[in-house]
């Protein structure tokens, strides 16, 4: 079984107003305890995954690079020891431009973190300020240069579009700067307002306008155009890659391969069962330190849940869903209106179709 492994690091220098991830500022004093707990949890969980081959590891957060290189290296060594890794396993670490320098990047690469995913978000200082990001565009360029200097050959840049005040011209500049830096992979996300975040509350109170969906659609189309022209393949709703650089780990989620999550709030999935660790880092620590798996909840997918997931996840990627899964009269209007392609036995969303994927999923599974 080809399995993904996700490791969550819940520490951040500051919290960004739009982010609803399980991440905390000011908990740095827990960092070394947390790393120990991760090592311990890896050991506790390993017997359940002994027949799996680990195809990918993804260190996400939070900001994993708030941890010391030595800690990160030790973690990966331990994981390789406790689990069976595929020879070509993809190992990704997320980083903020401000938390890395040449030395650290060299250390990470040498430690086996061969893929770097950097939160650039935007090259427009006003947009970065609107997102409450600390770094400036120059530090993204610097970090990118240093990554190359350190020897990184597989780098992703994360971008966010549609923040309050961002105009299409600004987004175009961000895309062009991104193309100029030539990362192997680009993730471009439409800003989503999560109700539980400070930004969500501002939108609710009318202090900040919600993103304009038509402008975000224009921005999406511009991304498709500019990234496509620059040789990136649009392989998932929000992801583009140079040939051969699609993210193995994330593809696993959309292809519904099993995954193991380690760390506070991390989710795991296999055989139509999904479960997740407790979210607060302190709770996570005390459970693991007491020698128990820190599971906070689980769900078992009914066949109808599994079907819905299968459709909405697979439609996100170029693979699409087998044409035979969907009643022909349900798919036909969308094929006709150019939202879906019926190609080689699969229904695949076009770029226009990707933009209204929820509607497609609901109509196809109705």
């Amino acid at each position, binding site marked *: 079984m080809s399995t993904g492994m996700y490791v969550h690091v819940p520490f951040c220098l500051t919290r960004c107003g739009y982010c609803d991830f399980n991440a905390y500022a000011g908990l740095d004093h827990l960092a070394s305890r947390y790393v120990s707990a991760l090592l311990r949890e890896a050991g506790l969980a390993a017997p359940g995954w002994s027949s799996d081959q680990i195809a990918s590891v993804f260190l996400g957060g939070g900001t994993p690079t708030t941890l010391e290189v030595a800690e990160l290296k030790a973690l990966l060594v331990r994981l390789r020891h406790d689990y069976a890794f595929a020879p070509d396993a993809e190992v990704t670490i997320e980083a903020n431009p401000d938390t890395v320098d040449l030395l650290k990047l060299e250390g990470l690469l040498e430690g086996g973190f061969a893929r770097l995913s950097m939160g650039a978000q935007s090259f427009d200082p006003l947009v970065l300020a609107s997102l409450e990001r600390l770094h400036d565009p120059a530090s993204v360029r610097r970090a990118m240069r240093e990554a190359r200097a350190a020897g990184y050959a597989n780098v992703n840049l994360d971008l966010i579009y549609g923040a309050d005040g961002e105009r299409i011209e600004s987004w175009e500049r961000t895309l062009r700067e991104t193309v100029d830096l030539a990362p192997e992979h680009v993730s471009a*996300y439409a800003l989503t307002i999560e109700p539980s975040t400070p930004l969500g509350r501002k939108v609710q109170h009318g202090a900040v306008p919600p993103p304009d*969906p038509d402008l975000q659609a224009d921005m999406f189309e511009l991304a498709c155009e500019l990234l496509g022209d620059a040789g990136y393949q649009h392989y998932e*709703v929000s992801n583009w890659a140079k040939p051969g650089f699609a993210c193995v780990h994330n593809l696993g989620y959309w292809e519904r391969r099993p995954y193991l*999550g380690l760390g506070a709030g991390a*989710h795991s*999935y296999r055989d139509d069962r999904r479960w997740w660790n407790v979210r607060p880092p302190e709770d996570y620590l005390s459970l693991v330190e007491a020698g128990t798996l820190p599971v906070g909840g689980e769900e078992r997918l009914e066949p109808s849940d599994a079907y819905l997931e299968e459709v909405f996840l697979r439609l996100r990627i170029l693979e699409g869903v087998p044409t035979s899964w969907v009643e022909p009269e349900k798919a036909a209007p969308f094929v006709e209106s150019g939202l879906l392609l019926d190609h080689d036995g699969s229904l695949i969303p076009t770029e226009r179709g990707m*933009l209204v994927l*929820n509607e497609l999923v609901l109509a196809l599974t109705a």
Partner: protein
Amino acid sequence: MTELTHIRNFCIIAHIDHGKSTLADRLLELTHTVADRDMREQYLDKMDLERERGITIKAQAVRLAYRSQGVDHELNLIDTPGHVDFTYEVSRSLAACEGAVLLVDAAQGIEAQTLANFHLARDAGLVIVPVLNKIDLPQADVDETRRELAEVAGCRPEDVLAVSAKTGEGVTELIEEVVRRVPPPAGERELPLRALIFDSSFDPYRGVIAYLRVKEGLLPSRSKVRFMASAIDSEAEEAGVFAPEATPVPRLEAGEVGYLVTGLKDVHQVKVGDTVTLTGKQGAHEPLPGYREPRPMVWSGLFPAEGGDYSELREALDRLKLNDAALVYEPETSRALGFGFRCGFLGLLHMDIVKERLEREFGLELIATAPNVEFHVIRGAETIVVHNPSEMPQPGTYDHVEEPVVRATIITPAEYLGPVLELCQARRGELLDLQYLSPERAEVHYKLPLAEIIFDFFDQLKSKTRGYASLDYEPTGYEHADLVRVDVLLHGEPVDAFSSVVHREKAAQYGRQMVERLRELIPRQLFDVAIQASIGSRIVARETVKAKRKDVLAKCYGGDITRKRKLLEQQKKGKDRMRRVGRVDVPQEAFIAALRVDQKAEARK
């Protein structure tokens, strides 16, 4: 049995909030009709709904025992509805009385409905006892209101009584004056029985109860009776009086007021205004004058918000009808809203009450189409009666249309006269006359199309006069009108529920506003949705709901999948609750909001 000379039958004419129910409470207390420990506020208004709205829907008759100057008297207080929707019911209640207390809030002055009912009472030959209420209020202007009331009632200011129903001040004097001024009933007890039904209700255990005033003859407790207009005979089970709870008596005699357990099960057989007599040879030949079939003035389609609740709605309407003889309905099928009923009401208040009772007592969620009047479409010698705008024939297929008109009475502070006249003119009104009740208050009569006042006229009147103006109206027949049907089309499909019949000059504007409103209410779909208003085949307004371009979850990784699947399931549920019009999904809320009377009113400004 009480001597006729010791009986007084009277009612109280008052505007909403002028203190009728409070005065009734004091009368019950001061005459010891209700024991102190049983007393509660608004005693006579039994239904919850009435208590909350502070108005009385069902007329009631209560017997008060009162000793005046050493002689026992029987005072029958007949409670009347105060709203314009129920003018006919009021007239029947008045016909059961010899006198009326004209009750006016000393801080507010007389209101149009009070004035209209006063005219009804005077025309019916009742003796009027004018009374100022709420004299305990600091803002009461006793002298000025007394002068105004005296002028209206045509009496001397000294003849106007002053009370506080709240504190009880002056109420005993009021009772004495009722005894002194209101004449005892006339009525030959030897003549064949003729009793006037002024109200009825349905009791689940005892069937239909008639409230009646015996005009002539005797009504024994158990007797074979005939309902003359309905032409139905029945074995009456019990006669009685309300004191204030139902108390059986051996018989009711000419001059008396009470109830009759009719032995019938269908409230529609016991009609307000009908005459009860005995069957066979003992019976009267001629009914009492003044009977009229109840006639709905306002129509609206009622549809269950959830399609499956149709049979529940039918059951609920059937049950309501048991107690509401004025409610009529027939099945209606709307392409947009599915199966429902086209219902006829006495007026807007009646409509609101029925709708609220359906929702509250039967737990139904309803979509009501905008209310409309009954139109008469004239084609040669033929008159087509139209209760539903979507059934209005297309222009060119008939000669002309007639609509109901009313004579409206408006009383307003003189300073707001300008805006009031403007409002009436804007509603196609025709000024009949204008006079001053006092230098500060004017009384205006207008001829107005009923259709123009059933939406928001009263609200507009109130807002233009800071709440001081009052309104009453009576139907005066049908008149020729230049009306056209405006249809609303979604993506080319007419939506019958949105069709409306409006005056030609206002039709385009109405269409534009409806279309603009719907543009706000209809969610974006995967294609451009055209919203059009048309008169016949002519499009008079058009808006487009642009196709939805973005509806996708930006991020979906391992930790998101469960949550995002649930979001999708929610979105799916929302979609399932929508109504499909052609290819367009329309949420329930859009129908409700677009058809809401006040929103519609918004569109008419």
